[in-house]
């Protein structure tokens, strides 16, 4: 096992897996962060009830992928963990605060009556702030992290960049697009109409910011420009932006017509393409321009130990997560169970079912 793990292809496999976990996180939590971003834009309280009900059974599993990303990083690429996390101290902390507020809003909003708007705001503001922080982290990653003697060597604000802000706004648009797509699929009536209307705005924001971020990082980060515009690469990589463009147009044309899941599924494709572009820009680094996946990987015996579990357990995890989505398939409904609400007094009495 240890010999096998010393093979230079092994860190590649783990890098692919880490990319997979990040993708699942971004796609899955993207939909419920997106619903949160759109939350206050919804005109009526009952629409907000429905929006929240549509993600209630799945948000926890989605957010668990964030923990999975963190723990896979410390297990497989420790250098990425102990250099990048201090480097992004403030945005990570504020993302966590934001996630606390939006997470707790799931629990308390349904029970609140007079001060429900407070939890509405907590949920929406938490979603927006968490997204912006993720954008700042993303922009900081593309821009690079100062490092000396194997440790982060910058200050508390060296994460900040204009590129990061652009990424943050872009992610807001992107998550809102996924969220709107999800709502078109999972809700009906006025909530669905609202989602269709706002999907246009989200799509425009996403497209504009994707273009801006790509251009700006090519202009300001020479390594990124070199990766994309050197000659064989330019032709080999051209399909990525072209495909993105095609999918964006396809979304635009399908918001009102076409099958209901279409906007959601195509917006996932947009994100997947964006992530491919990101991997191209950052490859092969764990800590951009300092530590490669080969230098940053954990001990072979550690990789071997986690490989066993990942190969066996991850497929099972994916299967029962898919099952949970399946159980709650169909249009969302305002339910009275779970986190509370007024169900207690109104519970119909009855014998054993």
């Amino acid at each position, binding site marked *: 096992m240890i010999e096998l793990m010393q093979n230079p292809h092994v860190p590649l496999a783990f890098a692919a897996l880490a990319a997979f976990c990040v993708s699942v996180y971004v796609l899955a939590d993207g939909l419920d962060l997106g619903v949160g971003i759109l939350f206050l834009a919804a005109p009526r309280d009952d629409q907000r009830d429905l929006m929240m009900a549509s993600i209630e059974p799945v948000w926890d599993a989605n957010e668990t992928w964030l923990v999975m990303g963190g723990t896979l990083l410390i297990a497989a690429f420790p250098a990425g963990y102990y*250099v990048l996390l201090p480097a992004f101290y403030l945005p990570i902390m504020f993302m966590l605060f934001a996630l606390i507020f939006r997470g707790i809003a799931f629990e308390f909003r349904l029970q609140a009556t007079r001060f429900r708007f407070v939890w509405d705001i907590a949920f929406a503001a938490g979603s927006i702030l968490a997204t912006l922080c993720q954008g700042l982290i993303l922009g900081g990653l593309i821009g690079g992290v100062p490092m000396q003697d194997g440790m982060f060597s910058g200050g508390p604000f060296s994460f900040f960049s204009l590129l990061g802000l652009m990424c943050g706004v872009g992610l807001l648009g992107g998550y809102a697009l996924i969220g709107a797509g999800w709502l078109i699929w999972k809700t009906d009536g006025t909530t669905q109409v609202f989602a269709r209307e706002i999907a246009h705005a989200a799509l425009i924001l996403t497209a504009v910011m994707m273009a801006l971020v790509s251009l700006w990082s090519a202009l300001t980060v020479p390594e990124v420009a070199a990766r994309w515009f050197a000659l064989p690469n330019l032709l080999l990589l051209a399909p990525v932006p072209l495909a993105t463009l095609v999918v964006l147009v396809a979304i635009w044309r399908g918001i009102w017509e076409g099958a209901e899941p279409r906007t959601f599924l195509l917006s996932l494709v947009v994100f997947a393409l964006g992530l491919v572009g990101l991997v191209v820009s950052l490859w092969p680094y764990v800590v951009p321009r300092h530590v490669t996946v080969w230098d940053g990987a954990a001990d072979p015996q550690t990789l071997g130990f986690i490989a066993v579990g990942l190969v066996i357990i991850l497929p099972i995890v994916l299967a029962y997560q898919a099952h949970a989505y399946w159980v709650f398939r169909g249009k969302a409904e305002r339910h009275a169970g779970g986190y509370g609400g007024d169900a207690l007094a109104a519970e119909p009495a009855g014998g054993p079912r």
Partner: protein
Amino acid sequence: MDAVELARAQFAFTIGFHILWPTLSIGLAWFCTLLSFLWWRTGRPVYRDLMRFWIRLFALSFGMGVITGIVLSYEIGTNWAGFSRSVSNVLGPMFMYETLTAFFLEAGFIGIMLFGEGRVSKGTHLFACLMVSTGALFSATWIIAANSWMQTPAGAVADANGIFHVTDWWQAIFTASFPYRLAHMVCASFLTGAFVVAGVSAFHLWRRQHLVASRTAFSMAMWLALVLAPTQIALGDLHGRNTLEHQPVKLAAMEGLWDTTKGSAMTVIAWPDMAEQKNLYALDIPHLASLYLTHSWDGEVAGLKTVPPSDQPNVPVVFFAFRIMVGIGLALLATAVTGLVLRLRGRLFYARWFQLLAMATTPLGFLGVLAGWTVTEAGRQPWIVYGHLRTADAVAPVTAGAVTTSLIIFFAVYNVLLLSFVWFAGRLALKGPADTSPPSHEHPGLDRTNAGLLAASSTSPASLSSSSTSPATLEQAGA
């Protein structure tokens, strides 16, 4: 405060706040699973009412645990980069396996547990409850394996750069202190859960409402407490003797024992003075410490002075936290035994002073857990990996200003969270379970059936079966 102290303060605060929720949710998850099982097997509505009620409270505590737990999985990197650089080869996989086997399991089935009743069969709902509670136990197992490795490291060697490499996974996971800590913590969760159930049920008994459900739950909780409280004390004794063997300095701090002695006295209470390296105002009982630590009259117990003061933990913190933990354990045992005595006399549901006492015990389990973790974590200092890596060498290159900012926000946010939780969970708990069970008639006249609910649900089978309760009885009880 310098960067190390700030990082320690932040970690202690965030992990101390976090541990409250897993403590509650591990116990409640299994209680809900038990209720789901009883409902599935017996079909008695009282179990369904209790299950729905306790699942709501479980959901609140579970959510608090999730959001405060995510913080910790990142703090280990953001604030303890030196630590994660040194130990990631050993502990990284344990954290990852916790996510993979525990968090995903919980997250995958929590939706069905909370919202699935009615959408899935009773058997499937029970299975979802079982998966969530099993996930909670897996989580405790992995995280305590990681913590135990920090206390009693094994199965790994450090290289010249101070980076640990695993030589034997079995030894690294099943370290010397692991089984004791795991058993002690899981038992603490169940015990805390039992006293929360007892306290909430006692409140309803005291108010003479939801009688059928509350009696059932109160009785179950007191049986559990009767088994768990002595078990926990026995496990604590085993754990203490394990600590004596592997972390003698921590044990000496718990006992307030400075000099290595044979036939050591037990110090009931004192002020351990670290500057003087002795106890002030000590109340000692001769030979007792040797008796319970070594199980012999003249057994030798190592004292704090076996190591220089720079290698000693903060003795008063460990000393007093230990006494609080033990005191709470004894108080809970006394409550459980009192419950048994009342039960044997047939007064378990009627002794009003005991209902007040049970309500008062509700927070004790949490305080005991906090005190216990303070003993073991503060007692490990000044080491983060016992005997190998000092806490001061483990921090991240983050400025004190950044940590101060986050610490202040954590403090504010967590207080808001706690207040909100107490408000909403308290409201749910005080409202109580639904009454769809026929009222029991074992002591007619004492029951106060909820007349309003009875009228509201007049078409339900429950009200038909309870129609034998005459209006006169209702009025009499209500007066």
